[in-house]
């Protein structure tokens, strides 16, 4: 069923009786050509592009819970392509271009909103760094603009410009950045993949891998063994656990990141503001809630909930940037498990096991990557060669000294 304005009107006039479930609920078959483990944004996008762009094949997505219950439904929905390094920027700009055409492509309203994102700076050195980053972005075909203090003030007059420690001197703006309704992304890809014959199998926990003579034959699951010619793993925070079934140790730690939503307020922030120096970023949802967050808690965790010190830190950051936030009440807070890699950048690569492929290490920034991650992972699965924008995301970059370390922090995941 195609969705359209006409369809909405027709359904409104006939009591909304004609809507159907957006995807089937199939039982797993004995074997597939491709199994994607993980029904988050990346796994679903991979299945969608695999079915649509690359191959007519039997494809299944196996999800241990319900699709969209992981980070794709827990993030703060910011999309942007404001990276500095060569290994990253072409990939994220590819993703931004896919966002721009996504809703037409998969015929689903994902509320892609290019409302603009600013990264504040507070010193001359930070202005230089922002200029350099902006130039790198422009050279890779993205958009970037340097705003001075008065330009920032005209956008957000209520910010604390004269903060003694971090006075606002300006910002790097990417107007094409913004927000996307996160769970609609999961649902849109799921529906699009299902339409093209992909089996989306929920409540199917992958508990083991069958590997013989260096080749993967399929996966053991809570719903029995399922055979596959190729297995692609995209399980974000659970990466180390799932790849341990294949005997692999990853350059990764799992950490918890928290997010917060205030009560609904009148329109106040029409873009996205990031305040790195204060460990705080904020946007406003279409329902009016301020959606904000800060740093990861900083210790290994699989708990999907964080602790109070970071709540305090985020609240302090918010107060120092926009003191009026102290009058708003907090409605909800939650946590998600981040696959923090050793250089802060992802891995999309084959493994040494024939037929086993891996996609992970997204840290706290993988939502924006969802379309490109799905596309390039599908490309790798179908063609066995990396997509041109993802050639640097290899396992062996650590051994070879080819890290993609945007922050220059070294092998300390909680600092990325």
């Amino acid at each position, binding site marked *: 069923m195609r969705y359209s304005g006409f369809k909405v009107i027709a359904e409104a006039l006939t009591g909304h009786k004609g809507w159907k479930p957006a995807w089937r609920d199939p039982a797993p078959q004995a074997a597939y050509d491709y199994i994607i483990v993980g029904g988050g944004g990346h796994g679903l996008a991979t299945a969608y592009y695999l079915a649509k762009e690359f191959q007519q094949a039997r494809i299944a997505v196996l999800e241990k819970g319900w699709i969209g219950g992981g980070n794709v439904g827990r993030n703060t929905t910011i999309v942007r392509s404001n990276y500095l390094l060569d290994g990253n920027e072409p990939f994220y700009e590819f993703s931004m271009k896919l966002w721009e055409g996504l809703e037409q492509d998969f015929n689903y309203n994902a509320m892609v909103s290019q409302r603009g994102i600013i990264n504040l700076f507070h010193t001359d050195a930070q202005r230089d760094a922002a200029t350099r980053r902006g130039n790198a972005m422009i050279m890779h075909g993205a958009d970037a603009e340097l705003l001075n203090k008065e330009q920032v003030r005209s956008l957000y007059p209520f910010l604390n410009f004269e903060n003694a420690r971090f006075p606002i001197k300006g910002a790097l703006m990417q107007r094409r950045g913004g927000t996307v309704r996160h769970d609609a992304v999961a649902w849109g890809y799921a529906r699009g993949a299902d339409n093209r014959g992909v089996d989306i199998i929920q409540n199917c926990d992958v508990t083991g891998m069958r590997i013989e003579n260096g080749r993967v034959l399929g996966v053991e699951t809570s719903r029995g063994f399922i055979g596959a010619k190729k297995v692609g793993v995209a399980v974000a925070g659970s990466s*180390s656990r799932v790849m341990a079934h294949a005997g692999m140790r*990853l350059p990764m*730690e799992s950490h918890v990141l928290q997010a917060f939503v205030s009560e609904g307020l009148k329109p106040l922030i029409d873009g996205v503001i990031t305040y790195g120096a204060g460990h705080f970023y904020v946007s406003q949802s279409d329902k009016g809630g301020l959606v904000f967050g800060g740093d990861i808690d900083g210790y*290994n*965790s699989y*708990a999907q909930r964080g602790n109070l010190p970071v709540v305090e830190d985020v609240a302090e950051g918010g107060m120092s940037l926009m003191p009026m936030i102290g009058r708003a009440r907090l409605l909800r807070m939650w946590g998600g498990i981040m696959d923090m890699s*050793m250089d802060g950048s992802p891995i999309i690569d084959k493994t040494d096991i024939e037929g086993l492929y891996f996609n992970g290490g997204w840290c706290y920034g993988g939502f924006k990557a969802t379309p490109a991650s799905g596309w390039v992972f599908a490309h790798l699965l179908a063609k066995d060669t990396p997509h041109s924008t993802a050639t640097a995301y290899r396992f062996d970059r650590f051994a070879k000294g080819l890290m993609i370390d945007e922050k220059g922090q070294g092998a300390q995941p*909680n600092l990325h």
Partner: protein
Amino acid sequence: MIINHPLLGPRDAQEFIYLGDAALIHRPDGMAEGALERFIPYTYLRDNPAGSHRELWYHEQGDRSWLVVTRNTTTHEITAVEMARDVARKEGRSK
């Protein structure tokens, strides 16, 4: 989280800096044969378990000692706290 420091008693985890897996105590010998092959996994690869995890915490805003904390990564419950020095000695790292 409250870390029960062996010398100072219960302290707020906020006073500490987190480093990571206590396996980092076992730094390879840089002069030994094949040191490079051992340093790559030492530096970059982690077990990253869901469940009991032994990890290094540094009491920066306290007595500046390194601790080995055994903590469950699925519940954040801390089950043991030892001085890293004692652990390292026990495991044959120093004299």
